[in-house]
């Protein structure tokens, strides 16, 4: 029996309950994600996609409903360090060198110095930055920093990778390059990815399933299955890719129209 990676059941999240600024961010959300899946959340701003990601990562607690990760409550999964997180800003610690940044989660897990160094080298190879371990983050470009951030998130082989608009601050070319890199890493590591974006092409190119959310309160509007097989750079010009993008776009349009 293969146990689901993420099971979200009838989740509701209200911010500032009882206050004048009470906001219903999510309501009645159900979603199951299988191990090894790449699922993207897309929707207009304010649809609660970041909130959803934070609920899965146990950075927020649902007001109602439950979030289970690998068969246990999200809280336990966080304590078990099942998560790797990547945010829009690389969020590297500027007083640590690149390698030391990648080693941070390993350090917290109590790995030995030698093991940490070895893993940091592996990860730097994986994200194609083998010569930058001794640099400080500020010496790297935005795209390189984001790759380090991904390396840091993957360094301890988390079972679930949560990414909140990780390429949002990058220029288009870097962004496409990073998408390719991410897919390669995803295939190599077999990890499960939940990815938040508001780019239609990004969601179509990356994922097995695209979850389209509607705002106020955030709900799942529809789920678009994307089957493009093995992605390459040619995929971006594949009619199938356009068809998937169109389907996502239309779902988003109907969200905007309020249907």
């Amino acid at each position: 029996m293969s146990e689901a990676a993420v099971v979200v059941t009838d989740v509701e999240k209200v911010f500032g309950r009882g206050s004048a600024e009470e906001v219903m961010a999510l309501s009645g959300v159900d979603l199951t994600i299988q191990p090894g899946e790449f699922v993207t959340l897309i929707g207009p701003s304010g649809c609660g996609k970041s909130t959803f990601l934070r609920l899965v990562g146990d950075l927020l607690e649902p007001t109602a409903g439950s979030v289970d990760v690998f068969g246990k409550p999200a809280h336990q999964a966080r304590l078990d360090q099942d998560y790797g997180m990547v945010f829009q800003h690389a969020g590297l610690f500027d007083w640590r060198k690149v390698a030391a940044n990648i080693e941070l989660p390993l350090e917290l897990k109590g790995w030995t110095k030698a093991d940490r160094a070895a893993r940091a080298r592996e990860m730097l190879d994986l994200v194609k930055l083998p010569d930058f371990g001794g640099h400080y983050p500020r010496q790297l470009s935005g795209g390189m920093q984001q790759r380090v951030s991904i390396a840091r998130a993957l360094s301890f082989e988390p079972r679930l990778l949560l990414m909140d608009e990780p390429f949002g601050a990058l220029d288009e070319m870097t962004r496409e390059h990073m998408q390719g890199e991410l897919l390669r890493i995803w295939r190599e590591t077999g990890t499960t990815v939940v990815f938040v974006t508001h780019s239609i092409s990004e969601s179509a190119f990356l994922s097995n399933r695209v979850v389209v959310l509607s705002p106020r309160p955030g709900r799942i509007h529809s789920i678009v299955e994307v089957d493009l097989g093995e992605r390459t750079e040619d995929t971006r010009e594949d009619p199938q890719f356009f068809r998937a993008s169109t389907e996502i776009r239309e779902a988003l349009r109907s969200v905007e129209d309020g249907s």
Partner: protein
Amino acid sequence: MLATTFVAVVLVVLLWEGYKWVGQQTDDRLPGTGIEVLVSTDDLTMPHAKDILGELLSDVRDGRSTLPMSLYLLKKAWFTLQEAAIGFFLGLVVGLALAVLMLRWRVVERGLLPWINVSQTVPLIALAPIIVTWGRLNDLPDLFSISLIAAYLTFFPVAVSALRGLQSPDVADVELMRSYAASWWTTLFKLRLPAARAYLFPAFKIAATLSVVGAIVGEISIGTKTGLGRAILEFAQRYAVSPERLYASVIGAAVLGLSVFGLVNLVERMFAGRDREVAA
């Protein structure tokens, strides 16, 4: 660095003497007007720079022996430096501890921060006798009491800046540590303290100079037998006879303050230097 200091000293001397010279020519009035200048330029109010500097070399009595003024001040400054150093480190520890407490519990921050601000409005002169009396009742040396007075000044900038520094990391950075299931203390040591560095060093510099001020004021209000404060007090009482001496002792105090400031600067450079080496 040394050249800049030299130029600055020369500039101050030139300004001093220039002002004095003009005042002497115009009988203490602004040139071309009848308005009196703010500070009169006679030798009692503004002794010649060469007399003040010369005073540093002339002999002064210290108990039964005599020695040059500069050595005399250096000897006195040594005591003051010890008091200031203890006061500085006490203030640093207390300031950091308060900042961590306020970071940990919002309630503490709300309850404590106003008092920390109020604490600095209490005049040191009023506080000093209380601390000394308490210290003597508990058989503590006066040196320690003076250090406490200095610490009373130094903990303030450290506590306030450290709190801001510890609160400076982005929400995303804190969330990252949370996603690793890092404890509050781990987050403090791996994220918040290193992030606070940029806030801490400026506060340490202010605290270092304040520690000297606190030590000198402490000495004066306690009536100790030694230290720069004592020397300043004595020369102040004999200002009418030899104003150069008071100015000379003030220079001594300024040099001491600048030295500790420079010392903290040096420590900061050592930290920053490590980063820069790799960057190059």
